[in-house]
């Protein structure tokens, strides 16, 4: 019974008119194969639902293709191996397919280049062999040789003489190295050097030779052999080609061989031996210890992670703050004001201080903040952490608008992959304490440095830079260049400041001298000598000067004990005194002698260190001089020395 019949019985519409499944029919229609005969009848039994008959496809193994060509001919063909290096004396024979007589050259060429030398060598044989050329083995090309250092007698005597290695033994070592292709275990295994000169010495030197023989006879360690070979190799390498002319790989090899340390190798081998000798329990214990260590490390890592998370969370502004303050328009206004303040000053941390009041952030001395350019950065960096602690410690006030960017900054890097230092350099990633909003040019940063200086100082700095042939505006302000420039700039600034100080000291000295001269004159004491300055001035203080007529002669007398350069400096020091009055901030007294060569960047950088060291005494001097004009002579002298130096530098600057 087919589906057709069923449809008839159930009065269903016939299949042809059935709309629901036209697509299926279309699909099956063309898929049915055109069958013939009985197969079609059987297929038809199924009606519209074809019976699933898997047609059997009779595929037999294909008939073998028998070529009509005659069987391939093979011949026993002689060949040589050029790698033997015996000029083709050994002719071996192997079976090769016989090629047509037209083609033999081709076949030979693809096999390998027929060595002309060998062919020439056994020319007679070729004639005998009915002009069949002997080909070279395909495998000859796999022969490789190492090159070992060569030396002649003179070179050996000049460079390689050692007390514990004779030339013969060194030759023997190099021969072994050549024979065993630098395979050290084998070289060491076969190393069996016995000095042949021993019997020649005869009995006269018998006692001597027996003293020598045990030393020679005792087995050299592999490290000793290696060390000697590397020594010979490096020396000969540098003799043939000095190290500075070597190419990269050559030098690398040279360096590697140079650095060979037999003692370290021996120690390493001893370690290896101990490792091998340990028992199973020890091995297991060590393994478990390693595992334990790994676990501890992982735990600390996790702990750190958790702690950081905790800190971050503490940095957040608490969400339950009262936002009612901001509901009024004035509150909103003040918030805006606050935010703008943050933007303007870009002092993320220290701006929070006024809002907080109680924070130790305010404890940062204002002098530190208002300090001159180069130190500012450090001071801010220094205040940073202390403030952070304060936040974690104290409840956060609602007015605090800060940590929005902090939390963003803190949260984001945790997800990011940590870049290695090298990668950071490649991608140009740098880290900053804070960044201004929007892009800035690097040279602007430099301009900013100037903005805090007075016009006079700016001029001086520019002069100093001009003297060093550095343009005021950098031609190529890359990060590195800018950094170096900043260093240089700070050095120059320090120098200028220093000069300022020294000038002032000069002026002070002069004033004191005037006073002293006045006093002396008033008292009428006219004993001369350079030791006048060493006497205690407070003793003579009571007679503070009235008469100023004899000023000049005394001045000359006192100065005779000091540097001769003094007189010429006077006019300028007076002028600098004027400068001091003009910008009389409590400038740092970083005393720095003039950088000797006046070279750019690095010279200044190197000299920066002593500058800092000198800062202390300089400041102390100034303090002493300030409130108590009557200072000891020693101080005066040192100050004057300083001043002369700085004056010299100033003079050079002027030039």
């Amino acid at each position, binding site marked *: 019974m087919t589906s057709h019949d069923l449809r008839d019985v159930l009065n269903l519409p016939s299949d042809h008119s059935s709309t629901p499944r036209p697509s299926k029919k279309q699909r099956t229609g063309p898929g049915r194969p055109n069958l013939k005969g009985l197969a079609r009848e059987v297929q038809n039994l199924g009606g519209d639902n074809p019976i699933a008959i898997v047609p059997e496809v009779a595929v037999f193994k294909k008939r073998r293709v028998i070529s009509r060509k005659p069987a391939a001919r093979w011949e026993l063909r002689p060949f040589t191996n050029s790698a033997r290096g015996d000029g083709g004396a050994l*002719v071996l*024979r*192997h*079976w090769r397919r016989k090629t047509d007589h037209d083609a033999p050259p081709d076949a030979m060429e693809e096999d390998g280049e027929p060595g002309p030398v060998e062919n020439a060598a056994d020319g007679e044989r070729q004639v005998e062999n009915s002009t069949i050329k002997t080909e070279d083995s395909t495998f*000859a090309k796999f022969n490789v040789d190492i090159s070992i250092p060569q030396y002649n007698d003179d070179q050996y005597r000049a460079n390689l003489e050692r007390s514990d290695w004779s030339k013969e033994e060194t030759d023997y070592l190099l021969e072994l190295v050549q024979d065993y292709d630098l395979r050290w275990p084998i070289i060491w*295994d076969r190393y069996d050097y016995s000095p042949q000169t021993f019997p020649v010495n005869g009995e006269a030197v018998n006692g001597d030779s027996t003293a020598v023989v045990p030393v020679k006879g005792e087995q050299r360690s*592999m490290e000793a052999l290696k060390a000697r070979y590397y020594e010979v190799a490096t020396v000969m390498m540098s003799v043939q080609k000095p190290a500075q002319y070597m190419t990269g790989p050559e030098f690398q090899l040279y360096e590697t061989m140079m650095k060979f340390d037999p003692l370290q190798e021996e120690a390493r081998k001893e370690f290896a031996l101990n490792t*091998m000798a340990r028992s*199973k329990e020890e*091995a297991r214990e060590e393994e478990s210890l390693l595992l334990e260590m790994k676990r501890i490390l992982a735990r600390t890592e996790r702990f750190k992670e958790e702690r950081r998370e905790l800190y971050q969370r503490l940095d957040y502004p608490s969400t339950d703050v009262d936002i009612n303050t901001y509901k009024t328009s004035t509150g909103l206004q003040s918030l805006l004001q606050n935010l703008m303040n943050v933007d303007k000053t870009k002092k993320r941390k220290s701006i929070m201080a006024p809002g907080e009041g109680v924070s130790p952030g305010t404890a940062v001395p204002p002098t530190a903040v208002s300090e001159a350019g180069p130190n500012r950065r450090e001071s801010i960096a220094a205040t940073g952490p202390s403030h952070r602690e304060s936040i974690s410690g104290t409840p956060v006030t609602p007015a605090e608008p800060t940590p929005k960017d902090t939390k963003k900054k803190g949260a984001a890097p945790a997800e990011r992959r940590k870049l290695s230092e090298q990668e950071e350099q490649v991608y140009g990633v740098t880290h900053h304490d804070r960044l201004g909003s929007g892009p800035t040019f690097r040279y602007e940063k430099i301009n900013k440095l100037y903005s805090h200086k007075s016009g006079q100082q700016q001029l001086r700095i520019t002069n100093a830079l001009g003297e060093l042939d550095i343009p005021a505006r950098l031609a190529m302000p890359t990060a590195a260049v800018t950094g170096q420039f900043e260093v240089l700039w700070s050095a120059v600034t320090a120098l200028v400041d220093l000069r300022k100080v020294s000038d002032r000291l000069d002026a002070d000295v002069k004033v004191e001298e005037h006073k002293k001269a006045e006093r002396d004159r008033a008292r009428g004491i006219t004993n001369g000598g350079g030791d006048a300055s060493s006497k205690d001035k407070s003793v003579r203080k009571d007679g503070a000067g009235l008469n100023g007529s004899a000023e000049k002669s005394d001045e000359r007398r006192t100065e005779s004990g000091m540097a001769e350069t003094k007189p010429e400096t006077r006019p300028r020091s007076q002028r600098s005194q004027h400068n001091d009055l003009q910008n009389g901030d409590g400038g740092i007294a970083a005393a720095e002698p003039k950088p000797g060569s006046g070279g750019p960047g690095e010279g200044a950088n190197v000299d920066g260190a002593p500058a800092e060291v000198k800062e202390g005494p300089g400041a102390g001097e100034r303090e002493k001089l300030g409130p108590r004009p009557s200072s000891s002579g020693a101080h005066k002298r040192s100050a004057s020395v300083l001043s002369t130096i700085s004056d010299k530098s100033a003079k050079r600057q002027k030039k």
Partner: protein
Amino acid sequence: MAQQTLSSAMPPTDIYGGDEVSALVLDPGYCQTRAGFAGEEMPKQVIPSFYGHIDGRDIFGDEVILPRANFEVRNYMNRDSVVEDWDGATKIWEHLLCKRLQPERPTPPSKNGLNIGDGDGDGDVSMEDASGGGAENSVGDLEKPLAENPVLMTEAPWNSAKAREKAIEICMESWGCPAFWLSRTPVLAAFAAGKATALVVDVGGANTSVTAIHDGTVLKRSIQRSPIGGLWLSNQIRSMWETSDPRVDLVPTFMVENKKPVEAGAPAEARLRNFPFPIAPSFRAFEEERVLTEFKESVVEVWRGPGRFQPNEDYAKSQPGRVFEMPDGSNQMWREQRYRVSEGMWDDTVAFDQHEGRVAKSQTIPGLIKAALDGVDVDLRPNLVGNIVVTGSTSLLNGFNDRLNQELTNMYPGLKIKIHAAGLTSERRFGAWIGGSILASLGTFHQMWISRKEYDENGAGIVEKRCK
């Protein structure tokens, strides 16, 4: 299909690096001498190194060693596997390489007896002429039977320089080989296992040796050997049979005319043959060895643990035993004894004392391995222990590898130990020969051969210089 195209084209040098030059490989040992063509996987000819000497002439091969009058069995080697009897060696090698491996050469027409009639009546003259004329040819032929074939020979690693020179002399002078090479058996055994760096444990017939191979070169300081091989084991069995109660008589097969089945442990009921001539002791020993070999193959086993055999003897007794029937029909079940005889290889205290059976502790297999490893650089040791190649017929004892592994694990607990022992019996027996076959058929090996010219120029001493 693919195979056909491959074989009909050029040989696939890029894959195998092979380049056959119809070299012959000869692997002489104390018990057997093996010979065959390089590039094949098994030696074509394996004959005992024992040869028969009867009435002043030597006969070779297993099939000729029969009970005869005035028959004596000799061996051309000494127990160190170094050739001693060079006359015998030359003859047996020639018998193998020229007679057995080469097709029979046709007798020259002048001598085959068919051409006698064509002289003009004076047979004597023509005979003399013929022999005189043919003498050069035949002598040339005889003197150069291997003019076509390079020969690769193996040697024990402790072979003497004199023996090596003698070997090349025979090959070059007597056989006229175009090229020659001498290689040490452990190197070749390592090659057969596909390794260039290995610690080769070769448990052979007369000797057991442990040698470290680095990059295809023997490390001389690592060479260790001891007599605990197949013959030593045979002597252990003899000792056991002599001391057991009741004493077991060793009657070789050729002595037995007929026998009746008897109960286990009952005395044998067999009639022995009587020979009208005295049987040489050497022949009897050779025949006894056959029985002992059978016993080793079917009964003897290596105690594979737990622990060593001695403290576990009672436990060993509970293990299933094996029945062995002697040639005369007496049979017996062997239980713990079959472990005991081989235990001396591992534990010097257990061995039987008779027949020089007891060896020093350093001569046991663990001792040999330890000494061999101590003789090489410490950097190589882990690599060697990870590449242990076991070869030699006696290593086919049941449980040998398990025991070796156990001993090594005890000795070097921190290292990774890997034992490479061929699964096929024949590969284990002919390890050195197979390695030689591989080596001699390599295309890159052709530059190594000592050629005839080099021999002519430098003399026999060249073998010391080249085959290091």
